[in-house]
């Protein structure tokens, strides 16, 4: 069912024709927070209540887009006078480059990547420009968790605009088993807008998206993630498509990229992606549980809950070695039992 929905969502298949199916399709889009993406594909061809629903989503996404553009402007301004040019990651980059992957996308925060050597200077500049440490992660344990183990600073929230920024210095946690060569990707970044900010090249955008989706977290927004991959893949020119796996190997992100190519090939029926996939049977076999879990998440309901049983421990496993993980989970559970023992909130905010 939802594989068909995915194809309709990007315009590869028509909308479900019957009333009840169409209602179910829109309900699915709402649950997965992709009504804005559906609007960019289908609003022009809709009428009546469907057009209303899609227009509503388009207007909401337009607000996120304005917010994001303004935040980019503010970040560039905060760093004015330094020679630091942060790389916009994910949604920020898609909006800055006006990519299909950014159209209609809901955004709640902005992610940037800077060289680790510049981290202190960037944090100081943002604090001076009105960002403050986010209250829910201001506790000592969370600060230590982010600063010593993670790939980003504890989130900062702007005091007046209430917007969140995640400042990354690498693409996976320091403690993660997968370490991507972010240096190589940083040096291949290119200017965005007036040049005070940068974005990754098209291949690296796909690679980072694949890493984020398949090598970090519990795949909580499956439809949104898969649609993003589909559009990013479609944005690669022929030469980039052919070089994609080589580049992935070069920066040490081959297995997440193979998962991503599998998803684009299987779920969206892309022959190009299918032709590029690795031929190694053993690695395909090893990838099977994760792919079954992804399919389960897409089917929702009991299958999704079953998939979580696999994906939740996996997400932690990917983030840190076992000994550390045990200590971290103990800390988390202690906080669940007596929430007042720490300032507030759990680490590992998605």
């Amino acid at each position: 069912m939802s594989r068909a929905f995915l194809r309709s969502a990007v315009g590869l298949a028509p909308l479900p024709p019957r009333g009840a199916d169409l209602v179910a399709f829109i309900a699915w889009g709402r649950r997965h927070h992709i009504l804005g993406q559906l609007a960019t594909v289908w609003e022009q061809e809709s009428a009546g209540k469907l057009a209303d629903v899609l227009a509503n989503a388009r207007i909401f996404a337009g607000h996120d887009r304005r917010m994001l553009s303004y935040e980019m402007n503010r970040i560039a301004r905060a760093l004015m006078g330094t020679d630091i040019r942060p790389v916009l990651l994910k949604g920020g980059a898609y909006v800055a480059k006006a990519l299909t992957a950014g159209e209609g996308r809901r955004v709640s925060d902005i992610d940037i990547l800077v060289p680790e050597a510049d981290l202190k200077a960037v944090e100081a500049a943002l604090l001076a420009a009105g960002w403050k440490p986010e209250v829910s992660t201001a506790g000592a344990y969370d600060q230590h968790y982010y600063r010593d183990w993670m790939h980003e600073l504890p989130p900062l929230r702007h005091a007046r605009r209430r917007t969140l920024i995640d400042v990354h210095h690498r693409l996976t946690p320091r403690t993660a088993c997968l370490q991507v060569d972010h240096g190589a990707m940083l040096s291949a970044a290119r200017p965005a807008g007036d040049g005070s900010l940068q974005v990754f090249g098209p291949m690296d955008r796909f690679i980072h998206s694949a890493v984020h989706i398949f090598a970090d977290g519990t795949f909580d927004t499956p439809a949104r993630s898969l649609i993003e991959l589909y559009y990013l893949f479609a944005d690669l020119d022929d030469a980039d498509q052919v070089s994609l796996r080589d580049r992935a190997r070069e920066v040490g992100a081959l297995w997440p990229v193979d998962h991503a190519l599998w998803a684009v090939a299987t779920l969206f029926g892309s022959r190009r992606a299918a032709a590029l996939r690795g031929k190694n049977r053993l690695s395909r076999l090893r990838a099977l549980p994760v792919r079954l879990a992804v399919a389960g998440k897409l089917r929702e309901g009991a299958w999704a809950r079953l998939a979580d049983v696999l994906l939740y421990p996996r997400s932690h496993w990917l983030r840190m070695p076992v000994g550390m993980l045990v200590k971290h989970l103990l800390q988390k559970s202690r906080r669940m039992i007596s929430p007042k023992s720490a300032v507030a909130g759990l680490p590992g905010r998605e």
Partner: protein
Amino acid sequence: MSGSWNGSVGPEAMKRLADHAVRDVAAALARGHLVLHLGPFALALRTDNAAARDFLVSMYANCPVSLDQDTMADFSLHVRPPNLLRRFVRRQVMPDPGFYFPSVPLPPRMGPLALEMGMNMAVALQCFRFAIYHAAVVADETGAIVISANSGGGKSTLAAALMQENFRLLSDEFAIMQPGEPLLLPYPRPVSLKNASVDIVRAFAGNDAMSGVLHGTPKGTIGYRRARKSDIAAMHRPARGRLLLFPTFMEGAKAEVKPVEAGDAVMRFIAGSPNYHVLGEAAYTSLMAFADSIRAYDITYGNTADSVALVRELWTQGGAA
């Protein structure tokens, strides 16, 4: 291709809630297939709470509804127990608009309150096609009176009183403004009344116009004055604002009127909007046109008769728009 995927039947072809068998209504409600078509919105409702269902059947009797699963809705609302345990033990009910929202679980008899609060939330937090402002709106053929929500200002009581003066009800809760144009759209749901207002309105509107009364809610005693058949019949007819009021009720106070400068009025009005910033320029354009078409006043009064006399005077003063 256009027109083939519209996902709804024209509201004119639709039956009123009262034309359906209560059994069918209950079955559709239990499965979330009841879609209420009111003004610009279609709202899919789901509940098995008996008090909420009875309230709906009585208070929304004249509204067009569809009971099939083929009808697209703008928003959906599930009035349900907070968890499985509270379905059976010390039962509770709360509105669930499909996204996280902090709300107090209520005893099952307060289902109507959960329903009404949920319907407000669903629109206030998810509608972006129109700019929404927290205000009551009534109108006659010449234009609309917009009563901004000051806490304890008595907007609902005043709206109910003006209904008695032959104004039609657009909304007790939201001024819904078309983007680009200062047109106010009707969303005629029951008028929510608190504490002493319940009996004040009952005294002039009559018992048949009122819902049952809920005592001991987190907001005190709550009762509703129903939207009339004529209000529902005019639910697709927008109105142009002529008067914007900021009411203050003070026990025993002398009636008083103070003009409010347009820029000031507009800034105060924006403060009551949950989505003005989301619409951006489209909301700004219509609001500026609105500011040009209205006169704004702070009004203070000590009883309902005074407030009605005062509004009458301001209304005739302005002459025809």
